[in-house]
């Protein structure tokens, strides 16, 4: 990792945040019936799987986990070359009348979540949609608010938040990278 990176969450912190989010989800849903976790690729899917197994430890139930690629619903498609698609897999039985918890690693502008809500709209009609994120770094550009947050992380707009998860990156860590543009030490 970059020497200018400042680690804000380590492996134990991430584990605690996920367990707390799992408790909050179950508490708010009064159990785990009708729950579906949908991760936004790639790290959101890894987080969704971890939250599901934490819920399993609390409730002794198996919450369905899926993956929701939002690429085709992005509002910035025309600003970059066409991107490869990620996997979308909706658990059997669909999302109709279920409580869908969207899971992503970082909440920033809110545009990804907006795209995810549009995608959900085309797939079915959930009873409710909630949002769980590991890190909320602020700077929202849309009226979107998370229901479950691992850590609120005040950042400046020029900083970068990097989430690394064992399933994807081989390590568990959340770090803030300093002002990359001018190369200032973090």
């Amino acid at each position: 990792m970059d020497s200018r990176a400042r680690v804000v969450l380590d492996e134990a912190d991430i584990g605690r945040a996920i367990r707390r989010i799992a408790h909050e989800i179950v508490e708010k849903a009064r159990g785990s019936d009708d729950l579906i976790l949908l991760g936004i690729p790639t790290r959101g899917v890894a987080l969704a799987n971890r939250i599901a197994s934490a819920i399993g430890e609390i409730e002794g139930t198996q919450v369905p986990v899926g993956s929701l690629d939002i690429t085709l619903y992005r509002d910035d498609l025309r600003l970059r070359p066409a991107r490869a698609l990620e996997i979308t897999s909706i658990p059997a039985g669909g999302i109709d009348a279920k409580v869908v918890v969207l899971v992503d690693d970082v909440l920033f502008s809110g545009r990804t979540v907006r795209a995810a809500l549009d995608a959900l709209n085309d797939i079915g009609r959930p009873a409710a949609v909630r949002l769980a994120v590991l890190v909320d770094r602020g700077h929202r550009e849309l009226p979107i608010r998370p229901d479950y947050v691992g850590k609120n992380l005040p950042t400046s707009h020029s900083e970068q938040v990097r989430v690394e998860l064992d399933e994807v990156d081989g390590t568990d860590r959340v770090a803030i990278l300093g002002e990359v543009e001018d190369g200032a030490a973090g």
Partner: protein
Amino acid sequence: MKHLLSTADLSREEAVLILDTAAELAAVTDRSVKKLPTLRGRTVVNLFFEDSTRTRISFELAAKRLSADVINFAAKGSSVSKGESLKDTALTLEAMGADAVVIRHGSSGAPHRLANSDWIQGSVINAGDGTHEHPTQALLDAFTLRRHLRSGAGDLSGIRVAIVGDILHSRVARSNVLLLKTLGAEVTVVAPPTLMPYGVESWPCHTSYSIDDVLPDVDAIMMLRVQAERMQAAYFPSSLEYSRMFGLDSARVARLPEHAIVMHPGPMNRGMEISADVADSPRSVMVEQVTNGVSVRMAVMYLLLGGMQEEI
């Protein structure tokens, strides 16, 4: 990638990307809302100078599933029948703001001409030009092969495919030979000597004059339609003889390996290159090829039009 004119232009990575994208887009067909907003506000023109059923409908459906506006232009009943040139037709479409032109033309090279002229700025997708190429057909064939023989992932390395029939007039065969080779498959083209193209020995494939020789050693056999409309000379003595020598009947299917699939790009002449019982048998994947065609064309349109238009 701005245009799709020939499968020769595709690298292995690009071809696999198209197939992977198509695999994800195929799931849209199973949803309650079979539509994606990705190409909202884009205009796709289907410019068909030759008759077509499945290709035109397939492109139209693919564009509509991605929310593009589609204009269908058939040469019959248009100003082309009054003698308008390809250039003037293209300039008209450009003036109307077409973002992509899907062209089928009887002359080989017409899409290339369109893409490399300054007549239009948008993307050009070749939907079959003369006896040259039909790239989206080859892509959907590769997609179908991958689904059945490679569990839907990666390339086609090691797969053996025979393409049988009117190779001389077949744009499907040309596109397939090039694409399947790029994806690592081993292709044998089979035809009577009169229907083997000049210079076929320079193609990246094997050749054979006997369907019976290749049957036991293939994972897939692709039967081509005998294109009577392109045949100005007698290429074989009678259709009965052709059917006996090169047609796929149930006796020949029995000599295929058990896992091998039977493909046909359509439209087929039942009883000519393929017998009706084979066409309707579970070994035949023709209906699935049509379904896969929509996904593959969605993938091509998304990759060509979905992102930022490259500056040229």
